[in-house]
């Protein structure tokens, strides 16, 4: 089984890796760069080398091939290949520092703003190379929205928070249209009922859970194709978390959602597939049920059963 998957994945050499001269193959990772917990595990990784499970999917929309990310000398992500389809929720899990957030931020090029970060490999969105020369990250981020760990509404009114994206992108032709977008976005985020009488009040005055839904509303106001969520519930209480999770469920009908989470219960609840990262390597990807009931890789199993993390 494992061997078969490996051959499947091994497509690197044929790929067109534009501007990708410094690519380091997985087996040539400088040891020193990785802080390995134990020698035994190291050997397991190097032995297995490649991701187990199913990195491919039907009707892939986002395709990441052999992605490596470096922060200066630090090799944060090594040779990750993953496909994400248009209507699924995929959860990225793994211990702290495993690179799941870094991988997430590659998908809308948020890593650009980190000066020392360098991304190699190939990521396409609907067939378009998102690291290609002719692609504007601004346009990309309008298509791939992002919700952050800590709710970060702008210090503006609730209305202006939601209207911000449509305004900068020029999505509304007039005020009525803008109002329409704001209302429908708040509605979809399940927030409209709570705030419709105080749209002019500052967004920072809402509760944490409301703030995070405001941020989601703000994101969907731009009408993206993919929503990236970086631990969106880690700063929220269980009730607010439940509301967000419900929301994700609804949104997954229209958007591809990539969520990074520390909570395995959350991953189990919301996602269709799960990808397990470990020390910059994508160890295992599979259907959520399969991962949680029958993990293939020893590391995945250790993590899920609480032995690492």
């Amino acid at each position, binding site marked *: 089984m494992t061997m078969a998957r490996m051959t499947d994945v091994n497509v690197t050499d044929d790929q067109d890796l534009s501007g990708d001269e410094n690519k380091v193959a997985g087996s040539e990772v400088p040891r020193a760069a990785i802080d390995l917990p134990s020698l035994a595990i190291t050997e397991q990784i190097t032995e297995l080398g490649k991701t187990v499970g199913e990195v491919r999917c039907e009707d892939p929309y986002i395709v990441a091939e052999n992605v490596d990310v470096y922060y200066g000398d630090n090799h944060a992500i090594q040779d990750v290949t993953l496909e994400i389809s248009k209507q699924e929720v995929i959860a990225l899990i793994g211990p702290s520092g495993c690179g799941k957030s870094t991988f997430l931020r590659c998908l809308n090029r948020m890593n650009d703003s980190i000066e020392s970060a360098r991304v190699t490999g190939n990521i396409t969105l609907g067939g378009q190379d998102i690291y290609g020369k002719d692609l*504007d990250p601004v346009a990309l981020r309008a298509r791939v929205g992002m919700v952050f760990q800590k709710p970060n509404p702008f210090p503006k009114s609730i209305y202006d928070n939601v209207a911000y994206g449509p305004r900068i992108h020029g999505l509304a032709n007039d005020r009525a249209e803008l109002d329409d977008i704001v209302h429908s976005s708040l509605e979809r985020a399940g927030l409209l009922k709570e705030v419709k009488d105080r749209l002019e009040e500052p967004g920072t005055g809402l509760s944490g859970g409301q703030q995070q839904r405001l941020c989601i509303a703000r994101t969907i106001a731009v*009408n993206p194709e993919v929503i990236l969520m970086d631990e969106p519930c880690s700063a929220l209480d269980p009730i607010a978390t439940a509301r967000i999770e419900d929301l994700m469920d609804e949104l997954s009908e229209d958007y591809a959602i990539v969520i990074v989470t520390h909570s395995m219960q959350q991953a189990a609840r919301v996602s269709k597939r799960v990808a397990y990262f470990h020390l910059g390597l994508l160890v295992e990807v599979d259907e959520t049920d399969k991962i949680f009931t029958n993990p293939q890789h020893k590391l995945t199993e250790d993590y899920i059963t609480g032995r690492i993390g």
Partner: protein
Amino acid sequence: MTRKPATREKLEAGLKRRRRKELAFQLVGMLATTVGIVFLGVFFADLLGKGSSAFVQTFVKLDVEFTEDVLAPGGELDLAYADFDGLVRDALREEFPNVSGRSERRDLYRLVSIAAGYQMRDMIIADPGLLGSTETIWVPASSTVDMFVKGNIDPALDEALRPLSDAQLAWISDLQSSGRLETQFNSALFNNGDSREPELAGIRGALMGSFYMLIITVMLAFPVGVAAAIYLEEFAPRSRWSDLIEVNINNLAAVPSIVFGLLGLAVFINWVGIPRSAPLVGGLVLSLLTLPVIIIASRAAIKAVPPSIREAALGLGASEMQVVFHHVMPLALPGMLTGAIIGMSRALGESAPLLMIGMVAFIVDVPGGFSDPATALPVQIYLWADSPERAFAERTSAAIIVLLAFLLLMNLAAVILRKRMERKW
């Protein structure tokens, strides 16, 4: 999904304009940053161009005969009345035997600075055995000659309009061709106090004045500033008094320096009765001026020490005082020192308050203590900028270069300290 195609179109439509705006914004930012740096470059180039020539001085080589007739006409050498200038005049006449006539000779004598006579005197004092011997010595040329050699006097100008006569120009070229006139390092600039003769004028006096003032400032402002910062940051209860102190310190940091000069004039000179022009007054005024800077920097340094360290020490049963002196102070010290250096460099460049307390004066003797009359380096610059002699213009720039060199060194020290301090917790 309903609006999606429209969104993409609209997005693409605006992109070009937005990219242009982005680029323009970035360019404006780059331009702004360049403006400051370009100004700095122009400023330094201008300064070096004007001032670098002051570091050399034209010297004339003379064969001086220390004749007893001139120095000791009565048979005994009396330093107070010996005509050392006469030696120089004799040597010059020796060099140009053809010069005759009173006014021509006067012109000839004016080629050499009056410093030459003082030089002879110092030589005789150092070695009375020289009497009767002939020595070949380099003596400084007068400032007009120096200016001409440095190209600041246009020989093509009408004779009446330039300070050197045709005959003097001819003598200078004679001296140049016989290798008796050349420029050498201007050590007087660093060894002498102020003088009305540009070739004798130096910044030693002003530097010492600044030095004494800074010593007082360091000794008063640093300990007091650190102590105040420790109190305010670690011990002060939230009370009216500490609020008052807090507001005061922040305000004093921005009070115009000239107001501190008024304070010095009224309190230290008129009330306490310290003499005018004394570095002591200047030092006290500068201490008060730098105190808020040091307090603010020290407080920031103390604040940067994470509370966890304090809690750890307190948890082990240390008293608050022990926490401060064993843990907080050592960790905050580099930051405090940085603040002190920045405060000192501000004090070194300050001149407005010194105008108020009589430090704008002609003082030749290098001050030897805290109550001797003195000027400071920036004040010396202010004074020289006002001197009628042309040669002071380049010396003003040279003094500025020296002052800036000190300031840059201090800033560099602060930057290095800050780099070392920038420890992440």
